[in-house]
């Protein structure tokens, strides 16, 4: 099979045999871009014993998968992955290559971009094809999230981008989809740039990733204490959601870093976001303002969070949250 020209490649990140959700989001977006370019979406899957993952990629919209299955690719390391991706790009000459802006993507993409000498744009929140020129327009936050910038890669190809997780939308899975799986034809050579993995330590925190949560109840410094956050947990439980925190709350030790929402934490776009005792600094808004429905509870009527809240309640969260939890609980019980 020949891969069409001007193809859009998506790096399929997988960890421990699980494809990272951002990969599906990117395939979703890549399909839109590929359509405009009259081309196709190809997923790149480096790993070890990962052939069973190709179908998932296809079901989520990949129109071809290039798979590199090799022992050196069992756990992510920069050099072997860079060799594989660079060689695939050299062989197939895509127009665009997308990576999730994860701690893997943001490590791998720059190394690849430098190896093949092309432009790379980091942490994009919007991607579009420019009408007349077919160029990729990559929009990303800059200046600490205070500005947006649109970047192009005029001459070098492929145009590469890392894309913020939780922003693009994955496609509805098509269980019956089929596509070609192409084996990697290059070679992987151990060299002086190889690193050695001495140990892997899992972090202790919960399996519940707030980026997957449909409903998030988040607390800021205004929630003051573990007791305050316990009230938020109750509300989250009764709603079936997750608890998150602002950077101030994380820095005060009230919430784990994995639950931090904001520019330097995670970007979330849940269906419902309830912000309690959060002032709404720009860095925080950057992480949650795309939520479908935002309720803010804060005793300070001038708090900037009210500028993005669909419903703003000026009041004491310590009083309102428990009562709200109670009201929801009895509403559910009475159904």
């Amino acid at each position, binding site marked *: 099979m020949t891969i069409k020209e001007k193809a859009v490649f998506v790096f399929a990140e997988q960890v421990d045999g699980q494809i990272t959700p951002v990969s599906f989001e990117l395939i979703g977006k890549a399909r839109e871009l590929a359509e405009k370019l009259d081309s196709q979406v190809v997923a790149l899957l480096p790993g070890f014993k990962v052939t069973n993952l190709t179908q998932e990629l296809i079901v989520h919209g990949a129109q071809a998968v290039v798979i590199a299955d090799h022992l050196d690719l069992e756990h992510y390391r920069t050099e072997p992955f860079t060799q594989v991706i660079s060689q695939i790009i050299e062989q197939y000459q895509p127009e665009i290559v997308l990576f999730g802006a994860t701690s893997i993507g943001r490590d791998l993409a720059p190394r690849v971009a430098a*190896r093949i000498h*092309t432009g790379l744009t980091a942490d994009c929140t919007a991607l579009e094809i420019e009408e007349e020129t077919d160029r990729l327009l990559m929009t990303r936050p800059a200046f600490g999230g205070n500005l947006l910038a649109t970047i192009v890669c005029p001459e070098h190809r492929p145009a590469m981008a890392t894309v913020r997780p939780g922003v693009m939308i994955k496609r509805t899975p098509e269980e019956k989809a089929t596509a070609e799986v192409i084996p990697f034809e290059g070679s992987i050579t151990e060299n002086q740039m190889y690193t050695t993995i001495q140990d892997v330590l899992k972090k202790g925190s919960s399996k519940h990733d707030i980026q997957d949560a449909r409903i998030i109840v988040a607390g800021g410094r205004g929630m003051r204490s573990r007791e305050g956050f316990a009230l938020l947990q109750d509300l989250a439980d009764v709603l079936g959601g997750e608890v998150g925190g602002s950077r101030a709350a994380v820095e005060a030790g009230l919430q784990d870093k994995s639950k931090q929402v904001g520019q330097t934490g995670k970007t979330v776009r849940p269906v419902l976001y309830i912000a309690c005792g959060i002032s709404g600094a720009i860095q925080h808004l950057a992480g949650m303002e795309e939520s479908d429905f935002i309720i803010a509870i804060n005793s300070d009527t001038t708090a900037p969070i009210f500028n993005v809240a669909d419903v703003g309640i000026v009041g004491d969260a310590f009083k309102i949250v428990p009562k709200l939890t109670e009201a929801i609980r009895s509403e559910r019980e009475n159904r």
Partner: protein
Amino acid sequence: MKIIVCVKQVPDTTEVRIDPVKGTLIREGVPSIMNPDDKAGLEAALRLKDEQGAHVSVICMGPRQADTVLREALAMGADAAYLISDSAFSGADTWATSCTLAAAITKLNYDLIITGRQAIDGDTAQVGPEIAEHLGIPHISYCEDLNVEGSEVVVKRQFEDRYQILRAKMPALITALGEMNVPRYMTPGGIFEAYREKQIILWTRLDIPVADGDIGLKGSPTRVTKTFPKQMKQPGIKIETGVEESVQFAMDKLKEKYLL
């Protein structure tokens, strides 16, 4: 052991405000600081100096006034400082920046290069890994803890849900996370020495062995076509009333949106 630390002078973007009327960035009066991730990297290098007698050089690419962050680094205890400054380098994207820095670094001896993970103005996290690629050395990013054992660096590398303990043979490059340590203060004596006794070596275009096609705006594969402030989301309804009424209002809205 010889360590090179790359530092950048950046505006303190946590202090930046948006003009409420025009929706534009207010840049005046924003103080310039040493990029926080870089400062943590410098602290890590200085700890290796304290423990093992390493020699620490700091290097900065920027306008002439970026010499302030180099003085700060010297005042914290760095041994040597280099400022790479020339209008030919301006407008560089991460490719051109990394080419320029890598070329400058080839003039020095090193076992370890430390950069910050990302700068708070560009936020790309690309320059460190790209420098390593140009120099043909291994890199480890997202470093939360750094040790040197013989000829290897041992790094606690942060991922979203785990850590890896990674080893690389030096010469190597690591990118430092701001949370890696609490950087030391400068000492008053260090500041005086930095200004009165130490020299910052200035390198201009002619001092850097790099191709014209790889520097500045012309050497940048990516271009910014426009910048704009974020679209302010329109505020919804705000109420300030009693607890019971507030709860009832929220319940009504949740039901309205089928969120319950």
